[in-house]
């Protein structure tokens, strides 16, 4: 009975697909990470059991707020610590945390700073200071090697990755068309696609043109958006409210697809594997919705 109580009060905060694209890792508010086998869940003879995790372990004391997959490892971040798990081991249903052999990891923390860590050595290379409140979201522009960060203080800062210096600071809440004072000024989602940037949170989700640093379209979505991604010519975002919103660049909301959780925290697209091209969303429920066709919910994985 306690398990079902736990399930009742579970929220999924983060997701990440494996490098091969056949597995999904999800982290919840109890500090557990569950690994699901997508190939089993998507196969024609999938049953209830295949919608359960193949591996479920406690990774952190606090909630697992973000998960990130590198080529070989799964990085999970909780309340103050980052752990790295080997995907190979996870797939074999064993969990060992070990060092990684990649380049740098950019970590945005609750201490209002962005830390860049060298993943080989595990030493923090540099710190980017500037935010006045904790950082919600980070994204990286590979072309210009710029880091964008958004935080609780309502500012989107753009940093140069090479020099580690702030380049721009956009205070979204100051723009009238975006601002929604009744919700607040915090920015909880960021996404970039070459010259474009999506940001949302307290202010409405808006699409910005980075060269001109001005909002081009504002999306009339009712709740606060927590995660948004660019996909082909669509923008998909999730947040408060039990639906995934499909929006067009022009600023119209094309569709709102209903989901099981009452509010969504995370959205992930599995683009690495063409066989298992799915979108998964998780939120304040123990169930993770899987969309095989992005227009409707196919089934749910359950913790």
């Amino acid at each position, binding site marked *: 009975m306690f398990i079902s*109580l736990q399930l009742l009060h579970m929220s999924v905060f983060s997701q990440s697909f494996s490098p091969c694209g056949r597995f999904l890792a999800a982290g919840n508010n109890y500090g557990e990470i569950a690994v699901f086998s997508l190939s089993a869940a998507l196969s024609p003879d999938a049953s209830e059991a295949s919608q359960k995790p193949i591996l479920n372990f406690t990774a952190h004391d606090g909630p697992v707020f973000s998960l990130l997959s590198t080529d070989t490892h799964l990085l999970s971040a909780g309340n103050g610590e980052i752990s790295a798990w080997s995907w190979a081991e996870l797939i074999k249903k064993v969990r060992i945390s070990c060092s990684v052999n990649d380049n740098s990891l950019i970590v945005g923390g609750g201490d209002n700073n962005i830390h860049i860590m060298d993943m080989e050595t595990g030493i923090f290379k540099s710190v980017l200071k500037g935010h006045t409140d904790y950082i919600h979201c980070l994204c990286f522009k590979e072309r210009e090697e710029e880091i964008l960060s958004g935080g609780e203080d309502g500012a989107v800062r753009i940093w140069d990755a090479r020099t580690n210096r702030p380049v721009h600071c956009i205070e979204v809440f100051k723009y009238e068309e975006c601002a929604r004072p009744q919700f607040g000024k915090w920015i909880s989602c960021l996404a970039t696609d070459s010259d474009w940037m999506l940001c949302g949170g307290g202010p409405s989700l808006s699409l910005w043109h980075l060269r001109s640093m001005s909002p081009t379209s504002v999306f009339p979505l009712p709740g606060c958006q927590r995660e948004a991604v660019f996909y082909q010519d669509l923008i998909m975002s999730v947040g408060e409210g039990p639906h995934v919103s499909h929006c067009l660049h022009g600023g119209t909301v094309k569709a709102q697809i209903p989901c099981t959780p009452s509010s969504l925290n995370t959205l992930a697209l599995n683009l690495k594997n063409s066989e298992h091209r799915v979108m998964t969303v998780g939120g304040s429920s123990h169930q993770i919705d899987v969309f095989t066709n992005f227009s409707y919910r196919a089934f749910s994985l359950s913790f």
Partner: protein
Amino acid sequence: MRTQITSSATVMSSDAVKKRKPKVIRSEAGAPETKRGRAEGDQDVRVYNEEVELEVRDPQQDYMLYKDTCAALAKLMEEIQELKAGGAKVQSVEIEERRTQCSVHFITLKKLNRLAHMRLKKGRDQTHEAKQRVDVLHLQLQNLLYEVMHLQKEIGKCLEFRSQHEEIELVSEEEFFQEAPAEISRPHVTRDDQHQLTLARLDWELEQRKRLAEQYKMSLARKEKIQKAIEQKREYLSSLQPGLQNIMQASLPVQEYLAIPFEHMQKQAEVARHLPPPLYVLLVQAGAYGQACDKNLSVSISGDVDEAKALSRPPEDSQDDESDSDAEEEQQNTKRRRATLGVQLDDKRKEMLRRHPLSLCVDLKCKDGSVLHLFFYYLMNLNILTVKTKVSTTTDLSGAVSAGELLNSESLLNCLYASDHGKETPNPANRYQFDKVGITTFGDYVSDLGHPFVWVQKLGGLQFSSGGAQSGLTGSALSASHMERTMKLLRGRLQARLALHKQFSSLEHSIIPVSSECQHLFPAKVVSGLVRWTTMSCQEFTELGFVQHVLKAGLVHETDLFFMATVERGTARLRAAVVMNPRYPEVAPLFSLSLHWKGERSGRTDDNLQAMESEVNVFRSELQGPRPGLQLLTNQIQRLCVCLDVYLETESQVCDGSEGPKEFPREKMCLRTARGPSRLKPFKYNHPQGFFSHR
């Protein structure tokens, strides 16, 4: 026989009669009647006896004469006729002559007639005489025959006569001759004479009988004497009985003093012999457990011992009774057919659900003086045990309205073990028995007969095959293995309920009783307060909008108790629907929240409210309080109030103030007001620093 003479001279025949009469008188030599007969003249002289003449004449001749005369007469008449027709005068000589001849012929005829009559009479007289003679003889014959018959009858009767003496069984002849003294037997006479022999034998019989009667009288007298002696001795013995009783009574205080309730135990053992086996097992095991481990447990037997004895009587009596009652029932049936069809079924049902007259009463005493009384009954035909409960407390428990259901004897022992509802009989064989008498569910009778919980069956050593795992134990071993745990659970249940009762009465007064051991869980100042605490029915609960997720997850059962708590601060009102499992505090109450402040929010729509729910539902192990965890509910409610405080105070912080003064100034110390993508508030209280943080 009378010759019919058809003549016109009828006058003459009457004359002839007159004339005849005196002649007859004369021939009978009677007194001659001389009154009539003037035409006769001198009768005394002329003795004219026509009878004599009768013997002389020949009837045949007379007959011929008659014929001739008639012919002559006819001829004369013809001549007269001719003459008259020829015109002769009436007074002519021929006619006169002829007329005279006719008259002569007539006289002849008359004589012949007389003779005929006289012949006839004579013949008749002769016949008559002969007949008379025959009659006389016949009569004599009859008389004789009659007498013969009579005599024969008498002879027959005499022959059949059985004298009483033949009914007396006499000793056989040889014995008689051997035993009887000589003066009675008189062999010289009796050997020859049968009659004398019989007489002698009868005499001997009489002698013997007299002697035996004497002996009999003497024996009777002796018997009387001995009887009297026995009576005296009996009286003496019965006079001893009260003396013994007095000694027993006097020894009771001694027994108590020495703490050997010998007599009480003996009495109980005596009654226990009549208990049905499951109750006996329960008695023995409970008694043993009470003696060994738990001084506050006591067992006693109550009920009607005589009825119990009656049940165990030999079956022939009961069979007779059954057949009698069956016969009676059938009689009744034939008389009033319609009325008894349902009554018969009812009676059969009652018979099936009959309880054994003896029952066990187990008392569990708690430290605060309240007692849980358990009454165990055995249903004979169904072979199951049932239990009824009663709680008696030292203090009066009428304070709390919402606590009405807590100590309700119907639901007090619900789900002592998980899913043991006690509504259905655990014995699968009963299903077939119920079908026969039309009982659909046992649940209808539970309030009368008690609850047939599975643990009750186990305590009585009754094991029914159910889906679960079977232990190999039966009887006493089964009972013993469950006794300790069940008693502990029972006691725990009682204490939990009593504690809840007290807590409810203070909750209804809007005071959340937090004991000193639990103060550290909460900050010193809690502004939100409980304003209402009410109980709800299952129906009302399921109709609430914000509890659907709990219902869908299957965490709500019919046997649960439902409550609504309302916490308020300022304009904000938080409603919490509580589902309490009967196994509280093993199973924590489940809270579902709905907040009414600037709109309606619930745990489904607001992530922070969901976080508050998980604070009280999931992290409840911190809120248990000191063992046995009876303060869980009140601690949970207190935590809700604390979380509401945090929620309201940090909420106004988050919004960038376009409104005026904040309704709820920030008083709680928080490290951070938001964390994570859902920007949850810090609900965790840290003691003793007194600040709030995220989990």
